[in-house]
């Protein structure tokens, strides 16, 4: 201690100086240890209180003890309460113990609904599947929806109301909101702002409208860190009114995607993937030859959409606009004075082939047409140009239709047709969510906001870094936050209200086309949580009405005209039908009529473009400062696993290998192989990325196909709060993301540090080393050799090189075929498998050691040059080999063959020699090296699928073909004395797949699609030459390149 002598004179300090080492004290009084303090302490901890009473003999002690025991036993004879309890004689309706129930519901994903069917076991939802009746699910799902069940049971979820960081009671919050209402009543709502994410719930919007009516001076802002509104604003430029395009890739014969990852991270990946795959499945059966679509992709970052492209081009983001301008010039679209020239990076023959294809399908028949899509990370004027070209190509009405925007209607567009939304004039800013947040920030900085309510949003993390949002929000005197996690924003708010999960509360939500789903809760809230409806109702003074009643009364008023007279009069039966279907028919927005290119398009485009260029020019490039590293462009993208960070506390998503990079638990700076060579960088090498005064240190990861001078950074990582899983991993991209480089920045400098940071990657090797693992060919090759296309590399093995005859299966003979042409590598199947089969999360350390537990993985292989490779996805579950190498080597017969052909794993019998895994040529077996399954956390017990064993330490496990589902179907079939029908057993991966790339069924049943697929000329067995006779087989990956473009010379890059 170096305190002055004056301070030392105080008894406390004297005491501290006298002490050696760390001594902890609870209060200053204790530290001072004065007489008064001791005197006060004495009655509480009387001296000698625990001393043995003297004179107590053994005999006395025993008699006392026996007396107390006798007295204690009396208490057991207390009189029973006169309350009647009844045994479980009459079961609740529908509930059969052990049998799951299924309920239609919907998940709001980035504000828009995805229809789901949730599986409930004895009242607890364990799993979600897609809802076939919902146009944005079509029975399939994506990783986010699949993983949402884990969020429900996440032990880190906010469970209590917090007031200044202290747990508070519900009544206190209610009185605080009551006080707030009085204040709002007094000043008409002035200074009251609400910030939310995208909201499409008609009922919530109606509530907000009511709030606005009550307090006209209040304002509502909405902001998504990944705003997807550029296309709406682009349509406003092109067509003169804000419209939202809806694409139909199923009708698109030629597609050009500019930076739009529509298969994974676009507006509606599930239906788009379905449509795209359906139009690409020429391969499956030669009896039904269909034409394949052709996909051109120009992108700055390698994405799964680029991986599926027939012609892919790595292109810097700025060149996209130039490419579109060149296309516009060729297709006679008047885009103003600007005459487009083909960007230098685009080979002229590539461009010409693209133009030829687009022209060939210009004004195609109503079945097919051409389509150009642009990613939401490009400015509105680029979208406008794309829509103008689409209009010129005659795509409107076939591949693209336009509707009234589902979100954010403004006064300027009230004249438009379609459903009048409830949010008219509610929003402060039309469509730009960034502008909406900017207005809030300005108001907060100027002290105009005195109360801020944040609804399920985390702006402190996600707002642009140059706004200093933390400072802005700190100027608001009174701040409330509703959220699932005590996140960065919650920490800065006076009140934090825990939010209900969508499976816990009633609500409604619109899909991208406006179609409403009623969100049914599957379980009562696990904790004392609130839904946004409840918070707004509390503000409206309507808290007494339950959200269920609010919803029902809102829909009783609304009652869309379904055109069906017989049910129209009976609301209850109508309501029941909506709940059962999972959608409210008749609520989808109709296609906007008379959409045509505005006559003022050229001028509007030019002015929008010039203003965008002017903003870009404001960024001063600091060319002089070479010492700070190499100048690069940076591209910010939502993370394929945790999106903008909202799923960061979800272990399933954190451990999900990201498509292409196969990274888990971290993000990295993605760079091109050529740049890595130039800068002599290796994977995992730490670099500093500098943008002006902002700096971030993070490791690099080399991605084949990345645009050479562009580095990509995924959002959502490097968080400081929001749960034990969320806080920690990765690097916060938001620190570099400013308004002038919201999506792209061209002023980033990259410098080596010479240090390394380990990244947990699940697939280190992406080259096939001359092995015929993925068979890939072109449609024309197949057409020339319809029976034996050369790319199949068929090996002519003798039919049965064994002395013993093959086993004959009389009953069922299960098998699976995976179509690698359709597979888009989106990971939905991986999470679906994890959710269905209780697969544990192991953490980054274990993934680094190569111990991830996924039963199904998606192998990604590259072919040809690393700068722009061809990519193939190969989902790999257990092959269930007929002659399984794993079975013969197990010393205790823990893995055996069933009489239906399954290779079964008997967990109870397994002693854990791992010999089976060593001997598995496909390496699909997974071992519980440590105790991975969490037996202790109570809430996680609710999550588990009761039909699947939770495996313990030391046990091998692997894909079972969802044997529990086969058993269910077998039991159902036996009860009806029939065989399992075709399509009755659907595995978890199969049901989740948006591209319908997985077929499973009984190979003895000729009506199963899987048997048809096995007859295809492009059907093959992986490692078939080992004669393991795998039951999981594959269809080759087929592409449809333009014959005018010489196929790229295959170069085996072994680096």
């Amino acid at each position, binding site marked *: 201690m170096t305190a002055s002598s004056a301070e030392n004179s105080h008894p406390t300090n004297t005491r501290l100086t006298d002490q050696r080492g760390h001594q902890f004290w609870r209060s200053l009084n204790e530290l001072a240890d004065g007489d008064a303090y001791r005197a006060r302490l004495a009655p509480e901890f009387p001296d000698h209180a625990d001393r043995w009473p003297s004179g107590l003999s053994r005999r006395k002690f025993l008699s006392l003890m026996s007396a107390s025991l006798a007295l204690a036993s009396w208490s057991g004879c207390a009189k029973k309460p006169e309350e009647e309890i009844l045994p479980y004689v009459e079961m609740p309706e529908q509930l059969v113990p052990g049998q799951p129930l299924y309920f239609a519901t919907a998940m709001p994903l980035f504000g828009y609904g995805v229809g789901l069917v949730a599986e409930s076991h004895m009242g607890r939802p364990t799993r979600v599947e897609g809802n076939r009746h919902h146009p944005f699910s079509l029975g399939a799902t994506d990783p986010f929806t699949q993983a949402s069940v884990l969020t429900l049971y996440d032990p880190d979820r906010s469970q209590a109301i917090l007031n200044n960081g202290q747990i508070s009671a519900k009544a206190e919050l209610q009185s605080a909101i009551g006080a707030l209402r009085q204040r709002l009543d007094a000043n008409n709502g002035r200074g009251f702002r609400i910030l939310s994410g995208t909201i499409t719930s008609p009922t919530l919007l109606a509530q907000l409208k009511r709030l606005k009516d009550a307090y006209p001076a209040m304002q509502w802002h909405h902001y998504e860190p990944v705003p997807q509104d550029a296309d709406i604003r682009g349509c406003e430029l092109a067509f003169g009114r804000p419209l939202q395009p809806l694409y139909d890739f199923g009708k698109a014969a030629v597609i050009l995607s500019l930076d739009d990852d529509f298969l994974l991270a676009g507006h509606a990946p599930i239906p788009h993937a379905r449509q795209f795959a359906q139009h690409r499945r020429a391969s499956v059966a030669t009896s039904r030859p269909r034409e394949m679509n052709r996909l051109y992709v120009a992108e700055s970052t390698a994405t799964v959409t680029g991986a599926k492209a027939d012609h892919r081009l790595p292109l810097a983001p700025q060149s996209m606009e130039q490419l579109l301008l060149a296309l516009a010039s060729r297709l006679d679209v008047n885009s103003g004075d600007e005459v487009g020239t083909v960007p230098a990076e685009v080979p002229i023959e590539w461009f010409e082939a693209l133009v030829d294809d687009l022209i060939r399908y210009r004004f195609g028949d109503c079945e097919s047409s051409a389509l150009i899509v642009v990613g939401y990370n490009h400015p509105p004027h680029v979208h406008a140009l794309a829509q103008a070209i689409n209009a010129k190509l005659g795509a409107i009405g076939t591949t693209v239709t336009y509707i009234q925007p589902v979100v954010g209607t403004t006064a300027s567009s009230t004249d438009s047709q379609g459903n009048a939304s409830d949010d008219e004039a509610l929003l402060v800013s039309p469509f730009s969510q960034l502008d909406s947040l900017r207005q809030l920030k300005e108001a907060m900085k100027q002290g105009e906001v005195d109360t801020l309510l944040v609804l399920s949003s985390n702006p402190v993390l996600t707002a642009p870094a140059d706004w200093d949002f933390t400072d802005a929000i700190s100027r608001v005197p009174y701040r409330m936050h509703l959220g699932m996690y005590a996140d960065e924003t919650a920490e800065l708010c006076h009140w934090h209200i825990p939010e209900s999960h969508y499976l816990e509360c009633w609500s409604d939500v619109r899909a991208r086309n406006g179609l409403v789903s009623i969100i049914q809760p599957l379980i009562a809230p696990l904790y004392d949580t609130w839904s946004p409806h409840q918070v707004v109702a509390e503000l409206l003074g309507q808290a007494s009405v339950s959200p269920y009643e609010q919803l029902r009364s809102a829909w009783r008023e609304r009652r869309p005209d379904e055109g069906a007279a017989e049910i129209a009069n009976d609301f209850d039966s109508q309501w029941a039908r909506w709940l059962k279907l999972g959608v409210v028919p008749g609520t989808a927005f109709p296609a906007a009529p008379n959409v045509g290119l505005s006559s003022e398009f050229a001028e509007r485009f030019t002015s929008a473009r010039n203003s965008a260029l002017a903003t870009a020019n404001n960024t001063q490039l600091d060319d002089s400062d070479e010492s700070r590293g190499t100048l690069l462009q940076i591209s910010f993208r939502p993370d394929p696993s945790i999106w903008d960070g909202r799923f960061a506390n979800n272990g399933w998503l954190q451990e999900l290998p990201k498509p292409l990079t196969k990274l888990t638990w971290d993000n990295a700076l993605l760079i091109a192989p050529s740049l890595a060579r130039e800068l002599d960088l290796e994977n995992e090498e730490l670099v500093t990325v500098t943008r002006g005064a902002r700096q971030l240190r993070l490791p690099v990861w080399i991605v084949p196909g990345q645009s050479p001078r562009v580095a990509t950074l995924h959002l959502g990582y490097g968080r400081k709060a929001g749960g034990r899983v969320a806080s920690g991993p990765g690097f916060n991209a938001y620190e570099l993301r400013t308004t002038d480089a919201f999506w792209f920045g061209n002023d980033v400098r990259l410098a080596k540090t010479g240090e390394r940071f380990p990244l947990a990657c699940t697939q280190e090797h*992406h080259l096939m080393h001359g092995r015929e693992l993925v068979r890939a060919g072109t449609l024309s090759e197949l057409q020339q050799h319809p029976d034996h296309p050369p790319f199949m590399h068929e090996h002519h093995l003798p039919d049965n090189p064994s002395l013993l005859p093959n086993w004959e299966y009389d009953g069922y003979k299960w098998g699976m075929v995976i179509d690698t042409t359709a597979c888009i590598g989106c990971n939905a199947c991986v999470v679906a498998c994890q959710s269905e089969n209780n697969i544990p999360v192991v953490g980054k350390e274990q993934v680094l050691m190569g111990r991830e537990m996924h039963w199904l993985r998606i192998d990604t292989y590259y072919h040809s040059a690393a700068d722009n490779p061809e990519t193939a996805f190969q989902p790999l579950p257990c092959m269930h080999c007929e002659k399984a190498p794993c079975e013969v080597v*197990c010393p205790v*017969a823990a893995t055996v063959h069933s009489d239906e052909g399954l290779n079964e794993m008997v967990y109870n019998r*397994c*002693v854990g*020699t791992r010999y089976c895994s060593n*001997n598995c*040529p496909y390496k699909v077996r997974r071992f519980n090296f440590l105790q991975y399954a969490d037996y202790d956390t109570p809430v996680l017990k609710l999550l588990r699928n009761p039909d699947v064993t939770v495996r313990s330490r*030391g046990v091998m496990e692997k894909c079972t073909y969802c044997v529990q589902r086969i058993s269910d179907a077998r039991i159902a079939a036996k009860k009806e004395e029939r065989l399992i029908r075709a399509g009755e057993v659907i595995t978890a991966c199969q049901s989740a797949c948006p591209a319908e790339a997985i077929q499973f069924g009984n190979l003895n049943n000729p009506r199963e699609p899987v048997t048809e697929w096995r007859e295809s000329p492009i059907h093959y067995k992986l490692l078939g030459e080992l004669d393991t006779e795998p039951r999981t087989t594959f269809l080759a990956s087929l592409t449809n390149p333009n014959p005018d473009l010489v196929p790229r010379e295959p170069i085996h890059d072994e680096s």
Partner: protein
Amino acid sequence: MTRAKTRTTPGSHRAPLVGAGHTISSVTDQISSIVLRRRAGRGWWFGLLVGFSLTMLLLYAIAWLLIKGVGIWGINIPVGWGFAIVNFVWWIGIGHAGTLISAILLLLKQEWRTSINRFAEAMTLFAVACAGIFPLLHLGRVEFFYWLVPYPNTMGVWPQFRSPLMWDFFAVSTYGTVSLLFWYIGLVPDLATLRDRASHRFARITYGILALGWRGSARHWKRYQGAYLLLAGLATPLVVSVHTIVSFDFSVGIVPGWHSTIFPPYFVAGAIFSGFAMVLTLAIPLRYAYNLHDFITDRHLDNSAKVMLAAGLIVSYGYVMEAFVAWWNGHPYETYIFENRFFGPYAGLYWLLIFCNCLAPQLLWFKAVRRLPVILFVLSLVINVGMWLERFIICVVSLHRDHLPSSWDMYYPTFWDWAFYLGTIGLFLTLLLLFIRLLPVISISEMRELVEEHS
């Protein structure tokens, strides 16, 4: 006896098997004095300190393993077998020389085996004890190890007899039992000698019990020799079978780099190679420390070195043929395995293995080298390292890159992997040092026989 004489006569120019001037009583005196008269030296205590500390480390590691699971090791998918199996094969291999020396050389009437067979057998026994730890503890669920035993049970399940691990279980347990019996039977006359010479009452009683009432009568000797020969006959096929079956663990598998018919002979040769190396590693310091030059003569070292050279050449031939067949069959997976061994991430270990097992033993062609105990000692250590590397290359390097490149991964040993390896070395050392102090390291009765024959 006449036969023995006729065979030694033509080789009379050779160095003798026993130093000059020894009588029956001097032999007995000198060998038994190590146990009964001489105090333990500083070297012995230091060795025991090291060995015992490492044994404690082993026990600590075993406790931690039982608490946490096999995940404390560096194993993963695809490398399901790491140090545990490498160490197991290495220790089993080391054990082989003991049985080879005591059984096969006995049947072949190689008298020079006499002075080294006792501690070689002890070495076998301790090596098997060390080896036996690994297959047991590498199980994910150790508590159910007995499911590998075919016993009638309520589950109605038998072990899976097609699995090489099952065969392994029988092979190793049989080998351990026969080795123990063989060693003990051979010890009985010497235990009686110790009983008779021991001055301390406790030692007298203990040796007395262990000597099973041996009185040295002619009938005893007849029974003894019959039993000993019979056990030698039983042990002989085991020398070949055990390591053959251990090699089946690999060669029955479908893994490229494992699936090879050359494995059984090449594993047996490798076992003899490493076993003789370990015999020399032990014999050279032993004869120096206890002044046993008269019993473990230069000729013993010379013969052992020759066996080592021969075994080393067979092993080298195995390496060459393995690579040749991989290249010749043109199977891409097999070819790649060798590409990976030669140039992959573990290539340094592979070339070190070639140096240790193929190049360094070539020195043994020179008689001068074979007669230099210091160089022999260093060479024996080099070969031990080389044989350990061989098992590492076969087990780990084959697994880490097999059929599908998507699953390729690296294996890095953890602290606990090393703790188990060093721990078993410590256990081996401890057992051996205790053996030196408690039992005659050289067979007194056989040495007496030898002296008698040569006098």
